[in-house]
C-alpha cells in the first residue's frame, strides 16, 4: 500500500533521514520507534508532503509510493487531492492540532466539505465521533472546552473521516492516561483493519499492543525491523536492546539500564557507533545496510547485531566416572547478564573454571567472539576475567592493595609503572574505594569484607574485559554492600557492554540482575530463558522447587 524507498530528508546542511526503505501493506500496522530527535516525526511529515510547511529549507529525495503512485512527483494541487482522502495523519500534540475557532463537529466534517453534501458529512462525522468514543453531547464544544482525551479522540475521528488507505499516527497516545490509552489502542486497532497504518511512537508498550511490525529509527537510519513481539522479546540490535532496557516494563525484573552517551549527530559511519559498546573500526567508516536475517527480521549492523560473546558447546568434565559438568550448551551475548543458578554441587563453579581454562574439559568446545578457544594466551585473559568465590582467599596475603590490583597489568605487561599506578587508582575509584596512599599500602587482612570484595572486582575490571565470570561475588557481603556492587556492575555493563556470567544460588538476586537465567542441576542445564519468563512461569520441576524455596 505504502512503499518508501531511499527517502532522504535534509534540513539545510544536516541530513535527518538517510535513505529509509519501508513497506506497509493493507491491514498492517507498522511502528516506528526511537528516541526524540531521531527523525520519526520528519518521516511522517515527509510522507504527508507537509515538510515544506514546517521548515522552508527542507529538501526531500527518494520515492514515496502510494498504491503505486509516487506522490513525490505530484504537484501541490494533486497532492491536496489525495491528502486526507487517501492518506491522513493524527498529529502529535493534540493540544495544538485543533483550530480553536471551530467546534469539534465542524472540524471533523471539514475534510468532507468538497466530497459530499453537508448533511451527509455531518451524519458521517457524528457517527465516527461516536465510534471513537467521543461524548455525543460535547460535539458542539470548542477545543478549549475539551479534555485532552477528548481532543485526541476528535483528532482520530478527523483522520479517519475520509476513509483513507494510509493513516499516519504520530504519538497518538502519548498525552493520555493509561486507561484512555487502552481504549484508544483498541479503537485504532479496529479502525486500522483494511488500511495501512504507520505508528510513530517512543512508547514501546503502545507499539507492542498495536503494531504487527516495528522499525527502530536512529540517526536517520532504520537499525532494526522485525515483527513487534520478536523485536521486543529478542532485540538483535544493541540500540533496540538499550531502548527496551531503559523502558519500564511491568514484567521485566532486571533494573532499568540505559545506553551510554546521548543522541548525537554522526557525520559518517554507523549513527549508533558513539554509543555502541561493540563498535569496531568499520562502524566508524561505513554506514551499515539493512539486511534480512530470517524470520522476517532486518538489521543494520556491521557486526550482525548483538554478538555472542561466549558460546559453550557440549562442554563436559568428568572426574573418573562422575560427570561434574555434563554436555552444557550456553550462549552469552555482549552486554548481557546470564545468571547461572542451582544448588551447591550442581557444577556451576566447575563450569566457570572450565571456561577460564583452570580445568581441562573432557569434551566440548568454548568459543569466544565466535572463535574457538584453544590454548589460552594472554589475549584471552584480557577479554575474559573471573571474580572468584571467596574474595579474601583470592588475594595473596603478601600483596597490598596497589600490588594486588596492579597484578593483572603486571602479568599482561600493560603500560609503564606510573601508568599502571594511575589505572589502579582509576579503577579503585570506579569501584568506590579510596585511592590514597594509605589505602594503597594496606594488606588484605586489614580490609573489611566489602572492601576485599571491591578490590577483587577492581582486579577483574582493571584489564577492561568484555566478559566477567562472577562466581558468587556477593555471597559474603551485607545486603547494602551487595546492592551497591550490583549497581556498579550494572553501570559498567551499560558503559562498556560487559557480558556477565553470574553464578549464584540466590534466586531473588538472579531475578533482579539478569537478562537471562540458566538453571543447572547435577551438571546439566535443565532450563534456560529470559529471566522474567523462567522465574515467573518455570516449566522444569527443579526450577519450580528452587522458586518455591526462594519465595518461602
Amino acid at each position, binding site marked *: 500500500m505504502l512503499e518508501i524507498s531511499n527517502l532522504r530528508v535534509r534540513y539545510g546542511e544536516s541530513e535527518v533521514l538517510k535513505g529509509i526503505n519501508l513497506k506497509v501493506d493493507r491491514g498492517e500496522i507498522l511502528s516506528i520507534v526511537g528516541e526524540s530527535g531521531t527523525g520519526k516525526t520528519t518521516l511522517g511529515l515527509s510522507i504527508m508532503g507537509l515538510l515544506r510547511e514546517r521548515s522552508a529549507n527542507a529538501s526531500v529525495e527518494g520515492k514515496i509510493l502510494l498504491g503505486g503512485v509516487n506522490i513525490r512527483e505530484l504537484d501541490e494541487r494533486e497532492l491536496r487531492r489525495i491528502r486526507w482522502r487517501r492518506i491522513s495523519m493524527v498529529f502529535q500534540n493534540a493540544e495544538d492540532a485543533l483550530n480553536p475557532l471551530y467546534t469539534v463537529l465542524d472540524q471533523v466534517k471539514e475534510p468532507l466539505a468538497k466530497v459530499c453534501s453537508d448533511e451527509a458529512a455531518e451524519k458521517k462525522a457524528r457517527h465516527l465521533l461516536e465510534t471513537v468514543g467521543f461524548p455525543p453531547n460535547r460535539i458542539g464544544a470548542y477545543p478549549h472546552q475539551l479534555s485532552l482525551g477528548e481532543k485526541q479522540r476528535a483528532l482520530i475521528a478527523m483522520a479517519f473521516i475520509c476513509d483513507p488507505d494510509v493513516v499516519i499516527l504520530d504519538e497518538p497516545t502519548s498525552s493520555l492516561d493509561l486507561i484512555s490509552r487502552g481504549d484508544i489502542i483498541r479503537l485504532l486497532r479496529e479502525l486500522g483493519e483494511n488500511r495501512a497504518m504507520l505508528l510513530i511512537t517512543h512508547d514501546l508498550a503502545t507499539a507492542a499492543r498495536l503494531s504487527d511490525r516495528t522499525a527502530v529509527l536512529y540517526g536517520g537510519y532504520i537499525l532494526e525491523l522485525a515483527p513487534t513481539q520478536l523485536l521486543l522479546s529478542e532485540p538483535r540490535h544493541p540500540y533496540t536492546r538499550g531502548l527496551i532496557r531503559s523502558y519500564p516494563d511491568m514484567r521485566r525484573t532486571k533494573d532499568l539500564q540505559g545506553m551510554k552517551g546521548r543522541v548525537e549527530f554522526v557525520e559518517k559511519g554507523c549513527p549508533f557507533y558513539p554509543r555502541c559498546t561493540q563498535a569496531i573500526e568499520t562502524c566508524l567508516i561505513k554506514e551499515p545496510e539493512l539486511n534480512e536475517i530470517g524470520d522476517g527480521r532486518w538489521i543494520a549492523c556491521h557486526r550482525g547485531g548483538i554478538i555472542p560473546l561466549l558460546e559453550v558447546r557440549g562442554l563436559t568434565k568428568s572426574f573418573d566416572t562422575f560427570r561434574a559438568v555434563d554436555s552444557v550448551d550456553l550462549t552469552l551475548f555482549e552486554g548481557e547478564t546470564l545468571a547461572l543458578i542451582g544448588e551447591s554441587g550442581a557444577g556451576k563453579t566447575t563450569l566457570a573454571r572450565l571456561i577460564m581454562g*583452570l580445568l581441562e574439559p573432557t569434551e566440548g568446545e568454548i568459543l569466544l567472539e565466535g572463535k574457538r578457544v584453544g590454548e589460552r594466551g594472554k589475549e584471552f585473559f584480557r577479554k575474559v*576475567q*573471573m571474580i*572468584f568465590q571467596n574474595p579474601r*582467599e*583470592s588475594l595473596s596475603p*603478601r600483596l597490598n592493595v596497589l600490588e594486588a590490583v596492579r597484578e*593483572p597489568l603486571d*602479568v599482561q605487561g600493560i603500560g609503564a609503572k606510573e601508568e599502571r599506578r594511575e589505572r589502579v587508582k582509576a579503577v579503585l575509584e570506579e569501584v568506590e574505594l579510596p585511592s590514597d596512599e594509605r589505602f594503597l599500602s594496606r594488606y588484605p587482612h586489614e580490609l573489611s569484607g566489602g572492601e576485599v570484595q571491591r578490590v577483587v572486582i577492581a582486579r577483574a575490571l582493571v584489564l577492561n574485559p568484555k566478559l566477567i565470570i562472577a562466581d558468587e561475588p556477593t555471597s559474603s557481603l551485607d545486603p547494602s554492600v551487595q546492592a551497591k556492587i550490583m549497581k556498579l556492575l550494572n553501570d559498567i555493563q551499560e558503559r562498556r557492554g560487559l557480558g556477565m556470567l553470574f553464578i549464584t544460588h540466590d534466586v531473588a538476586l538472579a531475578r533482579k540482575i539478569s537478562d537471562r537465567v540458566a538453571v543447572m542441576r547435577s551438571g546439566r542445564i535443565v532450563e534456560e530463558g529470559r529471566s522474567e519468563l523462567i522465574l515467573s512461569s518455570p516449566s522444569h520441576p527443579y526450577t519450580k522447587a528452587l522458586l518455591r524455596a526462594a519465595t518461602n
Partner: protein
Amino acid sequence: MGEVLSELSKDSFGRIGLGVFSLFLLLALVSPLITGDPMLHSTSVLNPPSSEHMLGTNDVGQDIWSRLIRGVRTSILVAVGVGILTTLIGAIVGVSAGLIGGIYDEVLMRIVDALLAIPAIVVLILIASFLRPTLWTLILLISILHWQGGARIMRAQTLSLKERAYISAARAFGAGGGYLILKHVMPGLGPILISSFIYSARMAVFMEAGLAFIGIADPTTVSWGAMMHHALKFYYLPVWKWWLLPPGAALSLLILSFTFLGYSLERIIEPRLRNA
C-alpha cells in the same frame, strides 16, 4: 633487601639477632687486622692471659685470641654455605616436584625417602675421617646429606600453595609458570625458605664444630670445635677458662643470633603476623 633490613631493625629480636650476627661478620672481615697469625708457633706454651696474649697461648704456643677470632670465619662460612646450598637444592627439588607432579615427583620423593633413611651423621663421620676434607669439601658434604628434609617440606607447601585461590586468580590474569613461581610460590615459601636456611646454618655450625671436636677435621683449618677438642686434653690445667670457654660461648652466641634472625624474618615475610 634494604626493606627487609629496615624492617628487621624495627623488631627487638631482629635487632639483637642482626646486631650479634653483624658483629661476628665484622670480626670475620677485620680479623687479620686485630689478630696475629693464628698458626704461628711460639715457645711460650699454655700461658695464661697476658698483655701479649689476650687469652693466653695453647699447647704449641699459638695465640688463642687470634685463633678464636679466625674461627668466626670458619663458622660463618660453613653456616652460610650450607644454608644456601641446602635451601637451594631443597627448593629446586621440592618446588619442581610439587608443581610438575607425576612420575618426576614420584622419583624425586623416593630419592628423598632413601636419603632420609641414611643416618647422615654416621656417614659424614665416616667420609670425613677418610677424606679429612677441606672446609669447602665439608660444606658440600654436609649440604648433600641434608637437603632432603627441606625439600619435603617445600614440596608439601608448594602443593598447598598451588591450590590457593590467589594462584588461580593470577592464572586467570594470564600468568605463566615462571611468574607464578617467582611472585606467588616463592614468597609463599618465604618463611619456610628462611627457616630452612636458618636451620641448616645452625646445624652446619654444630656439625662442623662437632666433627672438629671429635678430631675429624682438616688440621690447617682454624675452628672453634678443634680448639675445644685440643683444650679438653688439658682438663687438669686451669687453661679451660680461657681456652675452652671462649670458643664455646662464641658458638652459642652465633647460633643464638641465627635463631633470633629466623624468628624475626619470618614475621616480616608474613605480614599477617606483624600486628599479632
